[in-house]
């Protein structure tokens, strides 16, 4: 069952940037906004060495981890080949300029 929670305004996240949501239950969750105003949410840990993905550079539909430059798909959480690994994605949506996050 989805459980949508209002997080912040879309404009609170810089374009090609991110914000971090602290969740007691799920740990840190990174919320990304790309240049087309698409919003994505991933567990804020790179599958490689746990780097904070929220601190990476966002491009297209990917983020590059700040620690060792793995590229992670924003929608799937999958590492780009030849690296292998996956971080957990969360459901997120934008309605009337407000970002909502769904936590299972």
């Amino acid at each position, binding site marked *: 069952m989805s459980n949508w929670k209002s997080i*912040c305004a879309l404009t609170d996240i810089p374009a*090609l940037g991110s914000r971090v949501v*602290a969740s007691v239950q799920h740990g840190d969750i990174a919320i990304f906004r790309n*240049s087309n105003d698409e919003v994505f949410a991933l567990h804020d840990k790179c599958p490689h060495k746990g780097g904070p993905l929220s601190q990476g*550079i966002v*491009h*297209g539909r990917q983020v590059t981890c*700040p620690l060792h430059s793995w*590229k992670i798909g924003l929608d799937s959480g999958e590492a780009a080949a030849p690296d292998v690994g996956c971080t957990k994605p969360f459901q997120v949506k934008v309605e009337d300029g407000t970002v909502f996050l769904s936590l299972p």
Partner: protein
Amino acid sequence: MRKMKLVVVGNGMAGVRTLEELLKIAPDMYDVTVFGAEPHPNYNRILLSPVLAGEMTIQDIILNDLDWYKDNGINLLTGKKIVALDRRQRKVIADDGTEAEYDRLLLATGSNPFILPIPGKDLPGVISYRDIADTDAMIATAATHKHAVVIGAGLLGLEAANGLALRGMDVTVVHLGEWIMERQLDKTSGRMLQQALEAKGMKFLLPKQTAELVQGESGRVAAVRFKDGDIIPADLVVMAAGIRPNTELAEKAGIHCNRGISVNDTLQTYDPRIYAVGECVNHRGTAYGLVAPLFEQAKVCANHLAMFGIGRYQGSVTSTKLKVTGIDVFSAGDFSVSDDTEDILLHDPGIGVYKRVVIKDDKVVGAVLYGDTVDGSWYFQLLKDQQNIREIRDHLLFGKSHLGDAGHKGQNSAVAMADTAEVCGCNGVCKGTIVKAIQEQGLFTLDDVRKHTKASSSCGSCTGLVEQILASTIGGAYSPADTQSKAVCGCTDLSHGEVRKGIRENKILTIPELMHFLEWKTPNGCATCRPALNYYLISTWPHEAQDDPQSRFINERAHANIQKDGTYSVVPRMWGGLTTPNELRAIADAAEKYKVPTVKVTGGQRIDLLGVKKDDLPKIWEDLAKAGMVSGHAYGKSLRTVKTCVGMEHCRFGTQLAMDMGVKLEKMLFGMWSPHKVKLAVSGCPRNCAESGIKDVGVIGVDSGYEIYVAGNGGIKTEVAEFLCKVGSDEEVMEYAGAFIQLYREEAYYLDRTVHYVARVGLDYVKSKIVEDAAGRKALYERLLYALQGYKDPWLERSASTSATELKRPFETLTV
């Protein structure tokens, strides 16, 4: 709309590589059909030698398996040889009658071995060395027969001979020339190679001309007879006397050929619908028999097939490396002697080393190395880049890294390393892992190896070793990247120099404008190009271009250094390494208040507070600001530190006020962004306690003034700074050092340290700009001061109580 039809004749490395390049840029443009005469999917032909030698299996050398063709919607027809090409009806016809129509046709028919026109050439047991079938035949014969004769002592012939010898055959190599591999080696190195191969059990007959292959009672070949009447036994004869471009199909169809299918710089034949790549083509009078040029052709050809219409193939410079385990030979370029060439030679028969570099007009035009090929790729690079070597010719033969890079025990010869030896100290990658990845994944470039194995992808100090491993694993197929015109990243084909020029000449001020104008291939670049572009914009158009924080690496966005656990380090600036009890007290208080787990003194004479949480950063900055401290920029591609000794202020040997000079330089350069980090040092006398000799700019006080040294480096590769000039006053130190740094800021490529920049342009050039051209120097200095004008401390701007919401927001966590 109906998709266009692309038919590829030839399922080898050239044809399939072109398809790979095409799929990358225009995956949906064509319906693709590939015809291959062999029954196999595309395999790595250059690794047939290790297969023959028993070091690899056929399965290991498959580059594209059948699934690859299926996944990309390519219709692969193997075992079908195209015998006719009907240009009027635009179709090809195979030997079994299969026909295929095309809108565009790609000929990649490769080459045929040259078969000597002598009696007995068609006898059973006489083969060439070209494909899997030949290799299988050699392996089978080696199991049942004794005597092998290889005709031709070129690259292929010697690799065949080596493989057959390893499989237990008694091998004789026959060669027409005076020494072996005469097109790649000179006489001395050819002789050295021959001796080494003789020690491995091979026999050589040269110069010797074959007259006839004699049939035995069994019907197969039994002996080889020579022009001089000599005769030797032979159960197997391998013809390796060269290759000829396979132009039969094209010629029959009336396409212009001249020792290869003639193509222009876009790889188009005389029929504009028909393209050709690989060993079958003749481009500007040259037909290439190595893999590296073919990859360059594939890239250009794909670009035109995709109708992008950019890119020209302008020919290749090639190098050769013999793939015989345990023997190291490298050659590149032209090493014939003429009046205007000079030889630099090192020959030590005792240890089996021979190095010869041929110079013309202060540039490398050829190199032959035997026994020690460590610097082969460096010479090749110098040759390709046409770099002026006048300044380094006194130590040219001792190689690029005679000082040794850090991180792998000074090891600098990959061949001598065991498979279990660590090559990349940063990522813990062993030689065996790299070799395996190159062979099994079909890797050809340094970038491929970095992506797949991570070796050489961090600090880069092992790049030379990885290049050597790549070169010795794939031999002639390896071509070092062209540093002068290397693309910034996969998002563009433009080089750093071209991007800088575009920004300057067209007054581009924002990243979106730049990506539009220079036709970036991705919507917003990547983590490699964006920081470079941002730097180029703000350094070319200070106070006008927009700084884009989202295009900066996290450290420069957060104004602190990210650590492995996601916390940050905070380094307050201490001008010239000087501090006060008041500052130290504030640092101590802050460390306690924010529970900083580690406090450390840095190499640049500062104090590092490690393990600060991101949301505490604005608070700790505020506390430090109250004691008058500002950002130390220990996190940026920027001015880091000016290290000083105590100088004449205290030291009984001091000749100048080193601390004072250091503080002045550091205040002048505060807040300066640069292509990479910049470190300075000022010593008060030649004892040089501040280690000025390994800094980007090192100043050494002498009784009569200051000596200025530039382009030193104490990091990955220890590099001693070079003497720039001597000046008399503090003001001159500021002007000369400032002008040098501004020159570097304006001309270097992103992530080049001053040492890399000066190695590229030459110290003479730097002197001509800084020492000899007073007006130019002053202009540079003024541009630097203008760029730095009005810079505000980034910590104060973001500190807890003073900053605007906009600047503070990135440090705040959201809650659910």
